């Protein structure tokens, strides 16, 4: 489970990037965080991964405060970044092998890697292909595959569908639902309100560091989420 308790981040220059936000992502739940650029979505992720220390509050990962015990917390998070670049001179399998080992899974076999690559929809001929020849969509699939291999309770994804074509994005949604079915707590930051509506169990909207709205799927399906989101973005609702 991921939980933000009064999470706050003020940078040295005084900019308040995250302002006392609170949310929970439970086991078997997908939480989509919407917001414009600079709203504080990525900062929130960075706080959970302890890339930065919070000014106030707690980023909890399975009840472990990531700012107090970052290694323990990170052991329970799989992370997929916006632009999965990886090591371009390595093959897909070599990249997976390295990150699986960093994730504390040193015993996977070649077949295990191939099985996960099939699961994320990567073509067979790409398994031993070098990453430098991969499209963004293919690299994103490897990023997901690495997250699957880590088999952590919680998955954090930072804009994972940006730049993906509709087919790749649909495949991605399928994988995410499978992971949810396995009981993973999934936190995803995105601009893609339509995709969020499709598979999120809950949606949060961030604006200027504040969590201005949270809705469950039952609530936002009954409302016009696009309108609410645009109203927040355009400042019609504060």
């Amino acid at each position, binding site marked *: 489970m991921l939980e933000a308790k009064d999470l706050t981040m003020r940078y040295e220059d005084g900019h308040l990037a995250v302002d006392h936000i609170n949310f929970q992502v439970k086991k078997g739940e997908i939480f989509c965080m919407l917001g414009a650029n600079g709203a504080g979505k990525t900062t929130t992720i960075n706080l959970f991964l302890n890339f930065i220390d919070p000014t106030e509050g707690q980023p909890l990962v399975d009840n472990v405060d990531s700012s107090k015990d970052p290694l323990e917390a990170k052991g329970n998070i799989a992370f997929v970044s916006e632009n*999965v670049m990886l090591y371009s001179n390595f093959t897909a399998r070599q990249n997976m092998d390295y*990150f699986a080992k960093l994730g504390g899974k040193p015993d996977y076999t070649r077949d295990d890697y191939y099985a996960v690559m099939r699961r994320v929809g990567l073509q067979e001929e790409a398994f031993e292909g070098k990453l430098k020849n991969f499209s963004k969509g293919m690299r994103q699939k490897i*990023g997901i595959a690495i997250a699957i291999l880590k088999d952590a309770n919680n998955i954090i994804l930072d804009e994972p569908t940006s730049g993906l074509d509709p087919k790749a994005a649909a495949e991605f949604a399928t994988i995410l639902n499978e992971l949810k079915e396995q009981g993973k707590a999934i936190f995803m930051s995105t601009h893609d309100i339509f995709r969020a509506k499709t598979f999120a169990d809950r949606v949060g909207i961030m604006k200027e560091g504040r969590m201005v709205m949270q809705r469950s799927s039952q609530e936002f399906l009954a409302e016009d989420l696009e309108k609410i989101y645009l109203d927040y973005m355009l400042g019609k609702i504060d």
Partner: protein
Amino acid sequence: MLKHIVLKEVWENISSPKFVFTFLLCTVLIILSAYTGIGNYRADFKEYNSAKALNKQNLDASPSWQALAGLGTKITKPPQVLGTLAAGIQDAVGRNSTVNIAYDPQLVDSKYDSNPVFAIFGNLDLTLIVKIVLSLFAILFTYDAIVGEKERGTLKLALANRVPRDQIILGKAIGSFISLLVPLLIPFLLGLLMLNLYPDISLSGGDWSRIALMFLFYLLYLSVFFTLGLFVSSRTNRSSSSLFILLFIWVILIFVVPKSAVMVANHMSPIPSVHDINSQKDAFLQEIQGSAPQKVAEWREANEPVDGDDPTIFQEKFRAFLTELQQDLTARIDAKNAEVEESFQSKRRRQQMLALNLSRISPASSLTFGALALAKTGIHEHERFLNSIKTYKPIFTKWVNAKMMENLDFNARQQPKPVLDDMPLHEFVPMTLADSFALALPDFVVMILMIIVLFAGAFVSFLRYDIR
């Protein structure tokens, strides 16, 4: 965990085009340097043997003791086999010295004197390749070690795991260093193999120890640039900035600091020119030579034989006088030369030490001093050889003067040919390994300190590095 990071780093590097390029270029350069170094050494050794044979021939052909005393004997400096790895100053300084009763011996006839083309192109030895080419490669291997991973997003992905930062930086340092070692080690071993293939080149146990220490020096030197690269890479946010900063520092350390140190030392501690010193010596020599006929005339006036005296008694007394006068004049010339030389050398040593110590800011200077001390091709070995000749000079002159006077026959039309059976020989004991190492030790320590400071800087910077 560390093992996985090291292995990844090694594999990532050796599978990159830059590694292939580095390896091929190093192999070509090092083998080329070994080939030219061996060729030069063999030519120098042949020339050395010819010079020795010619000197023996000339000594044997001396028509008289006077001629021998005037023309003297020639001492030739033997080439150093490790000059194939670090040529040092041996091509730029003189190799031959004439030892006679008059002049203060100096080493002249450098290789560059005999063929200035060598001076235009210089030597392509292993030390130069390591100093310039491999240090540049060390930078190219590390300039994006940290910042490049940040730009690619792989650092974020790695640190999203249960991986301590110190393991990442240590793993990267060890892995990248191993990758850099390969392009040096393999061609280096090939070069040594080439050296062994020539039957006329023999390396002693001491030479092998020196080679091992030189290799250690090369590694330390590359480690300095390597840790510098890591440090700058962990202090910047763009790999292009890191590369620019490192190239700037590289130019300063390799080219600017060593040259500037000499210029600064020249200003801070000036010394008289060699011409001033030589003119002082020449003036005294002329004064002595001018005074000799007068002294002879005075003696003759005081001791002119009167009628009835046995002329042979006069001749013996005259011989004794000349012997004493000759020895006295030679001793005075030697003493004056030694005094002038000592004063000059003392000032020169002071300036030299200042220049060397200032230039040690650059690891390139430390590498040069250390490698040349171990290869016995540096300033110290040259000065030791020159000093051995200066020590030999009074021994030779005393012997030849004594022989000259002993065999002086006032009545003979032709003076007797010299017999060289008991001629004292010049002896030179090359620097021992312990002495060479003691000489190289300050540079060894300087480089280790630089590595510790830079790595500690890189380590601390990475622990605080903003990976976002």
